[in-house]
């Protein structure tokens, strides 16, 4: 039988010929003709025109012919629904055949005919087959229910097939059980909320029994189903683990991985001091290692899952570093995954070995792999502090090879090392500078420029180096331009005398000659900073940067837990929550915890890394936020541009993925807010300066309304009347919402308390300091002026809780130069009390994360004019000093936000 490999069916009489053969009286000729038709169909030719002739061959005793016709029917029934009805009778008849093979074949084929009209005729035969005496027929019928459900879900429910299917879970034959589970699982996928697989200890026991006796595929279905069960206590959990463990020695890797999933999930419930817990941990390593000796495709999926497992339980594979060493002929996708896991397993104990390997890889042929290996060396340095020195010297060796892309990668990672360990390895700068000319990739150029700017004071010819980059400024990529701008400003602040001309040049290039709004804005900010307040400029530009940590590329813990529950699935391959990418989302799974209520919510790493390496980066969904230009040219523009642009940019944020939904509950879980802090009144206007009128006051925010609380005291000899109040223009447009109500005349020595509601609708002018308010009070005697300062917390609005994803994106989006760091000293509160207190003043904790005894609170604040302020507060147990990092597009407010923190926390 020859097959011509072409896609167009040539109707040059071939169909006609086949038609004649199909209608031949000779059995043999008929069969050969059907075979020819099938062969054509297989290679994608359209032979649907022969439908009636082929269906005519169906009523035969010849099993092979019957099967061939069935094959044909399945393929073409959809396009010939009317004809397909002709076949119904034969199916119904075959379902009653004494031979179970025929019955099963009929019920199997029936379900594959995806024609609506036919389905209802099939319900009766299917019902019979589900209760057939022969398990082979029952197991086939179970799958048929899933098929039918796919075509007409309503019909299946109305006919009660789902209940029959559920009953089959208790069938005596293990294969029937496995198929029933498989069918139910598939149906459940399209009904995320249905309770189809209602698992209880009895059904679990049935499943575990069937597990030992069914085929390898059935075992996978059953194991995946078991993984959805939530054991009642640790004893049940242990007994399930014990019965699942033998599956780890199965030859089928999918069975092994599904068993690993069940064990990883259920062992969470076991007490850690249990002997069995340790035994189980030991048993998990060998099967995972064995998966790595399989075919490369299997290895790839295994490695993606091992990547999750080593993040969750590094102890399982910590001694198995060597199996992840890359082999010369591994496919590239396996190499890259192995490299990633090597870094995750790197520790002080094995770092020498790892580095030796990485150095070896850096001389391989594949450029992508070499690059990643070089980056990996940098990650090792950041992860294992003791190895940093060795890593740096390895990188220097690699730079000496002068291989272009190796040098460039090395410089990018050395920049990160500098950020992690400032003032430690600067001696290598000279070597780096030697390679300046060979850098042609933006990332490497930007990194080198950053280094030159950051250490300008130690590089004698820093100005020359930077100047050389300036020549082709407009041809550089934005990344390099921005970095160059900042670096030259840094240089200027460090060596002002010699570099004035250079800084002028770069500022004018960045502002006047550039079309890029980001670049222009940054240029203007610097320009203005430098021209108004060089001291402030120094504080802002040369501020101490937060350290980077290796955690940036870890999967955030909530997602990790979810993925552990989905080991072996597509979700685990993509490291994304199942709801994020599979059509028809799945039920949300969680790892069971024995102490759910007391367990603090783990949260994502929010540390910002200057250049997240995309390939190594965490699988965090990127949120696109429009860049908001902040122009500081005039004070009027300043507030306007922010109020109008900011909400728009946030509006574009997508909904949060399923795994993150619970974060919103955090505020409520912490406890009721305690209400905003109000400072005691202070004297604003002294009697001696105001003809006997003394005013003391404070500001308060009560239920979203801003109030100015005033105490007016008459220290003069005569009665005071006709009070009125007015504010000068101020930074945030504060203005009295109505006239000041002092109803009775104020007698000598009398004090009256007034609460004046304020609005934000007044005229705006930037004040110095920002929170300064100039007030005029008038009475029957004269007009008096005073100024007072309000806490910025007055302006923190109630809906200042930022979406977590938006927070992440915004934090990244705000340039690091806008970050300010403060110390809050002598606070003796734990993080929960602190965040509760802050919440009273509308400083909202969005996420909390605990790393090595250090609590990190991520907080957001929104000002009345729409400015967002993001903050990260680090609290070390036992240390009364908190570290506060504040990021805001308008960096001027940071200082005042910090003051609010201090005020709130200390009172």
């Amino acid at each position: 039988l020859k097959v011509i490999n072409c896609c167009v069916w040539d109707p040059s009489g071939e169909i006609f010929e086949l038609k004649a053969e199909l209608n031949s009286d000779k059995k043999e000729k008929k069969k050969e003709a059907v075979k020819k038709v099938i062969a054509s169909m297989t290679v994608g030719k359209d032979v649907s025109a022969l439908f009636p002739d082929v269906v005519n061959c169906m009523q035969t005793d010849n099993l092979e012919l019957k099967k061939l016709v069935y094959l044909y029917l399945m393929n073409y029934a959809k396009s010939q629904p009317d004809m397909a009805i002709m076949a119904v009778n034969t199916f119904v008849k075959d379902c009653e055949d004494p031979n179970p093979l025929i019955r099963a074949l009929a019920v199997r084929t029936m379900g594959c005919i995806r024609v609506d009209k036919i389905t209802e005729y099939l319900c009766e035969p299917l019902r019979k087959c589900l209760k057939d005496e022969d398990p082979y027929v029952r197991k086939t019928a179970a799958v048929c229910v899933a098929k039918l459900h796919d075509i007409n879900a309503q019909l299946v429910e109305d006919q009660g097939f789902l209940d029959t299917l559920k009953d089959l879970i208790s069938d005596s034959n293990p294969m029937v059980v496995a198929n029933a589970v498989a069918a139910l699982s598939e149906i459940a996928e399209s009904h995320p909320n249905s309770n189809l697989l209602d698992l209880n200890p009895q059904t679990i026991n049935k499943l575990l029994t069937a597990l030992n006796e069914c085929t390898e595929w059935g075992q996978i279905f059953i194991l995946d189903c078991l993984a959805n069960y939530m054991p009642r206590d640790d004893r049940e959990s242990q007994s399930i683990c014990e019965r699942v463990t033998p599956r780890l020695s199965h030859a089928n890797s999918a069975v092994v991985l599904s068993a690993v999933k069940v064990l990883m999930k259920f062992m969470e419930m076991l007490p850690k001091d249990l002997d069995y817990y340790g035994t189980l941990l030991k048993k998990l390593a060998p099967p995972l290692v064995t998966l790595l000796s399989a075919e490369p495709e299997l290895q790839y999926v295994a490695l993606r899952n091992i990547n999750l497992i080593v993040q969750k339980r590094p102890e399982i594979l910590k001694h198995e570093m060597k199996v992840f060493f890359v082999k010369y002929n591994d496919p590239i996708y396996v190499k890259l995954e192995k490299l990633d896991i090597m870094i995750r397993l790197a520790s002080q104990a094995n770092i020498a070995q790892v580095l030796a390997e990485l150095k070896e890889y850096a001389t391989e042929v594949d450029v992508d792999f070499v690059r990643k290996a070089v980056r990996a060396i940098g990650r090792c340095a950041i992860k294992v502090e003791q190895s940093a020195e060795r890593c740096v010297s390895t990188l220097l060796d690699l730079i000496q090879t002068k291989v272009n892309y190796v040098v460039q990668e090395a410089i990018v990672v050395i920049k990160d090392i500098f950020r992690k360990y400032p003032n430690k390895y600067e001696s290598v700068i000279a070597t780096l500078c030697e390679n300046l000319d060979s850098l042609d990739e933006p990332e490497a150029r930007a990194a080198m420029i950053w280094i030159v700017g950051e250490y300008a004071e130690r590089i004698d010819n820093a100005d020359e180096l930077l100047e050389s980059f300036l020549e082709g400024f407009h041809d550089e990529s934005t990344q390099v331009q921005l970095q160059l701008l900042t670096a030259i400003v840094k240089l200027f602040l460090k060596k002002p005398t010699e570099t004035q001309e250079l800084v002028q040049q770069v500022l004018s290039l960045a502002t006047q000659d550039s079309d890029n709004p980001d670049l222009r804005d940054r240029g203007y900010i610097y320009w203005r900073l430098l021209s108004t307040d060089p001291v402030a400029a120094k504080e802002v530009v040369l501020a101490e940067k937060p350290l980077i940590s290796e955690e940036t590329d870890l999967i955030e813990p909530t997602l990790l837990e979810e993925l552990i529950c989905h080991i072996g699935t597509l979700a685990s391959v993509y490291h994304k929550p199942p709801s994020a990418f599979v059509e028809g989302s799945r039920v949300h799974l969680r790892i069971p915890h024995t102490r759910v209520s007391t367990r603090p919510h783990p949260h994502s790493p929010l540390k910002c890394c200057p250049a997240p390496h995309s390939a190594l980066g965490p699988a965090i969904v990127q949120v696109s936020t429009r860049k908001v230009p902040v122009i500081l040219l005039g004070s009027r523009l300043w507030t306007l541009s922010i109020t109008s642009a900011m909400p728009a940019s946030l509006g574009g944020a997508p909904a949060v993925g399923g795994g993150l939904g619970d974060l919103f509950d955090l505020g409520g879980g912490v406890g009721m807010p305690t209400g905003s802090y109000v400072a005691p009144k202070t004297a604003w206007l002294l009697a001696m300066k105001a003809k006997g009128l003394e005013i003391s006051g404070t500001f308060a925010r009560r239920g979203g309304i801003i109030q100015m609380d005033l105490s007016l005291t008459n220290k003069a000899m005569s009665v005071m009347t006709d009070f009125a109040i007015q504010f000068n223009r101020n930074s945030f447009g504060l203005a009295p919402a109505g006239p000041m109500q002092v109803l009775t005349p104020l007698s000598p020595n009398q004090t009256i308390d007034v609460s004046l509601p304020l609005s934000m609708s007044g005229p705006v002018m930037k004040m110095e300091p920002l929170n300064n308010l100039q007030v005029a009070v008038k009475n029957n005697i004269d007009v008096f002026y005073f100024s007072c300062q309000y806490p910025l917390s007055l302006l923190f609005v109630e809906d200042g809780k930022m979406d977590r994803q938006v927070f992440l994106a915004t934090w990244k989006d705000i340039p690091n130069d806008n970050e300010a760091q403060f110390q809050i000293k002598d606070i003796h509160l734990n993080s929960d009390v602190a965040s509760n207190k802050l919440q009273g003043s509308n400083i909202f904790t969005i996420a909390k994360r605990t790393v090595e005894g250090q609590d990190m609170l991520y907080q957001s604040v929104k000002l009345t004019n729409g400015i967002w302020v993001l903050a990260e507060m680090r609290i070390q147990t036992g240390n009364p000093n908190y570290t506060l990092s504040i990021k805001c597009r308008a960096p001027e407010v940071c200082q005042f936000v910090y003051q609010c923190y201090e005020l709130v926390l200390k009172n």
Partner: protein
Amino acid sequence: MIHSLFLINNAGDLFLEKHWKSVISRSVCDYFFEAREKAVEPDNVPPVIRTPHHYLINIYREKIFFVSVIQTEVPPLFVIEFLHRVAETFQDYFGECSETTIKDNVVIVYELLEEMLDNGFPLATESNILKELIRPPTILRSMVNTITGSSNVGETLPTGQLSNIPWRRAGVKYTNNEAYFDVVEEIDAILDKSGTTVFAEIQGVIDACVKLSGMPDLTLSFMNPRLLDDVSFHPCVRYKRWESERVISFIPPDGNFQLMSYHISAQNLVAIPIYVKQNISFFETGSSGRLDITVGPKQTMGKTVECLVVTVHMPKVVLSANLSATQGTYNYDPVTKILLWDIGKLNPQKLPNLKGSLSLQSGAPKPEENPSLNIDLKIQQLAISGLKVNRLDMYGEKYKPFKGVKYVTKAGKFQVRT
């Protein structure tokens, strides 16, 4: 579950498609072709490819891509294992799994695929059962079929599918009852420049060819079962007995099957049978280089190393090699840049050596990467881990079977860095 399967050859021709649910247009393969092009080498095509509405999971075997399409969450390993099973079945049925044999037997292929999956759920994947359902083609049978008009489809219900031992068919009958076991060990190793072992492990399998009548119940025991701490068994093996007594007790499938595989990673147990002294260097100027490789025996346990082959992946700029070998023949393929030195038997008295000069593309800079050596070898009658079968007992049947055990050690991924 598994929705569709496409078979695509190395040239990118889609030559077979099979759908187990609704028909998915073959245009979905465009995403695969895109990935294929990006990967350059066929081996580097990522196994899981995401498209807007489907996932493509593929394996590459015998110059054929088996591309399966899935639409809902299905464990990828499940799919990959299944695809391997398909490739093995073709191999089993047609002697080789190639585009030509698949095209020649397209109807059988289609029948097989139909039996292997139902609605995307695996149905019959055991070779024993499949062979009862669909008879493999033989020259004799196809002749008989043409003459008598009988078919190659089984008429009866495959008995194994219902029993608790689905891997074995009932009523097996042989005149010569025999059971052979091959212990095959492969050494995976990486040696560094100085010859130090960076990494070494043994991948072992026990392949069986059992042709016994009736329902034999076999027990295989080892002299030193303690070596085996990481094992994977064929479903027929009773795991409980292994746990408690360290013996392998099983009712075998009929014919060829892999009884178990194991993995030995303890470094002290992995003997490295040979050493390689090599020096491959390129000169800064003159577009040339030198090569000098000597191979000698190390831990051979007194056996002879045979079928020794050294493969060197040369840098791209190497145009030709002018070498002389004291033993065996060498060949440099300037297209694939692979130097192949076929040594044959290793003579410990006279160590084979290959040396000479390499010429590079003129004007090309000195290559940056270090070439890497791959070693192939074979040692008969030795399992390098020292594993030994103690005895094989048969219960349940009365006849006396003929038994045999063979050992062989091979190099797996055996790599020497330069």
